[in-house]
């Protein structure tokens, strides 16, 4: 590996000089809380991500877009310790976390909302929230109250079994659970999946609110146009490697991105 380094470094400078305007790290904030460097990861022996770079700044709202099977969800799961780590580093607040299991990553201040089956359907809404704070000794009533403030419908239905609720409300339960530890970084895997169209915008409004309160958000989203319009910055991931990053608006304006990944 060490013999390759000078070569790849010179490659990078070459690339940089060639397309200075689309420098892959141009829009990255100076102070990032999450730094993914040259990450290789996958499941079992199957490598899906190759040499992926990713940064999330403090309080930043970052979206990963790309075609199906590009490894977007895998990248998010890798950050949360749910994949096999094969190379590179992941640092959260300057601490390496690439070897940690999810239950320890939670302690560092990252919460994750999976795409599917992201609630405990047979538990009540309130119990779902309590589970979100399992690692604390006491049930944090103040935080439950904060989640109820954010999603008032959950207060009304706190004793209802979460599995009996509508799709939009389930998504609120899932997010509420993830917010119970007041994380510094919230990972959202396709939060709009399966929601009725009129609920999608509402869901994005909620995410804006969460982000506005200071929680950094890293999101994977099928609904790429909306996601890019709303986020601070986007990454385009293709075939397990990241191609570009830029502000959401500029990615939206980019012809190549539009044609390849956003359907024209």
């Amino acid at each position, binding site marked *: 590996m060490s013999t390759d380094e000078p070569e790849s470094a010179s490659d990078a400078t070459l690339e940089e000089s060639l397309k200075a305007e689309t420098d892959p790290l141009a829009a990255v904030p100076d102070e990032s809380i999450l730094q993914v460097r040259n990450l290789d990861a996958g499941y079992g022996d199957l490598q899906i991500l190759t040499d992926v770079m990713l940064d999330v700044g403090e309080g930043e709202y970052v979206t990963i877009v790309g075609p199906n099977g590009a490894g977007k969800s895998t990248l998010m799961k890798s950050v949360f310790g*749910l994949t096999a780590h094969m190379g590179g580093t992941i640092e959260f607040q300057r601490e390496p976390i690439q070897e940690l299991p*999810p239950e320890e990553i*939670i302690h560092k201040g990252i919460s994750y909302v999976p795409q599917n*089956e992201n609630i*405990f359907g*047979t*538990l009540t809404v309130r119990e779902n929230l309590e589970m979100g704070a*399992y690692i604390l000794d006491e049930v944090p009533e103040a935080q439950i109250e904060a989640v109820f403030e954010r999603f008032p419908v959950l207060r009304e239905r706190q004793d209802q079994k979460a599995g009996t609720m509508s799709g939009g409300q389930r998504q609120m339960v899932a997010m509420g*659970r993830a917010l119970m530890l007041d994380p510094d970084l919230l990972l959202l895997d396709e939060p709009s999946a399966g929601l009725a169209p009129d609920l999608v915008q509402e869901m994005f409004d909620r995410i804006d609110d969460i982000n506005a309160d200071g929680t950094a958000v890293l999101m994977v989203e099928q609904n790429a146009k909306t996601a890019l319009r709303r986020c601070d910055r986007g990454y385009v991931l293709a075939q397990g490697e990241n191609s570009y990053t830029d502000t959401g608006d500029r990615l939206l304006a980019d012809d190549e991105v539009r044609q390849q990944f956003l359907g024209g």
Partner: protein
Amino acid sequence: MDVSDVITRGKVTIREQPLLAIAVLATALLALDLLARLAGIEVPLAGGRTFGGELSMGRFSGLVWNGIIVGLIFGLAGIGLSMTYSILNFANFSHGDLVTTGAFTGWGAALLVAGWGIGDIGHLLLVRPGSGASPNEIGASIVQAPLSILIGVIIAALATVVVAVIIDRIVYKPMRDRGGIPLLIASIGAALALRYILQFVYGGRNRGVTSTQDVNTEIAGFSVNMHELTLVIVAISLMLAMHFMLQRTKLGKAMRAMADNKDLALVTGIPTERVVTATWVLGGALAGVAGYLYVLERGTIEFNIGWFLLLFIFAAVILGGIGSIYGAIAGGFVIGFVHEVSLIWIPSDFNAAAAFLIMILVLLYRPQGIFGGVTTA
């Protein structure tokens, strides 16, 4: 509703669900027959068979009471089986032998305390493997030595927990992610190993354990067997304790969460291995106590009692809806009730078949079981 409507609907039912119609008809006939028997009416039928007959109210209520006793044993043992199924995702065939483990270890302790100074220590601790002090000499009964019986309950729970956790560490933990079938096969191996270790240690003799002196007394005009009463009280208390544990405590909620969705439990920060251990601790303790209480009620012990119970426990758990502890309790009552009350009509060699027949009939119309789909650990 019109009479013709009822007839039409009845016809549709018979055409579409003939088995259900037969079951309803059979139940109605048996109910009528039961009433006739209780009233002492007998109508001769062909071939020496009769409709109705003789059945005293006392015998009938005795059978119902037995059904409750047996149902409590099935239900108590079934809770652990159902929990390991829903949290660890496999049908644990060694559960029956955990029941036996509790029976032997618990009774070893109970006899030791009750018979201290009367018999040889080895003879007491190994639950009378050969000749020596007789059960009535040792005096292990709730009337003569209540403390020894209670110590036995505690030791049965503790020893079974130790055995269950050791088996989990050695056998199941290394293959946690291999899926249900390899674990099931491994559990059959664990069951055989455990059973023959128990036989090796305690011997294969079927022997009496409890003292029966003065065990039957009268309370408020009813003749009550104190051992059965003890069983009912301990079993119901433990079931209630389990209910509160699962609904109210943090660990109980985490167990329900893990039974619901293991992957989400992991990303939520629930320490899944600790929950698994807690499952073995609770399930093992209940299995052990169930075995101990079973022997308290029947009075004798043998190395394969748990194995013979296992099929009924499985039937109860499946009937109730596997994965639900309330299902295990309800299923236990149904299987136990049918097992005992069916003795009115059929000889005792066939009553197990009646219990399984009811299980099959219920599952045909409710494949997920009585409480299926509402898994609560």
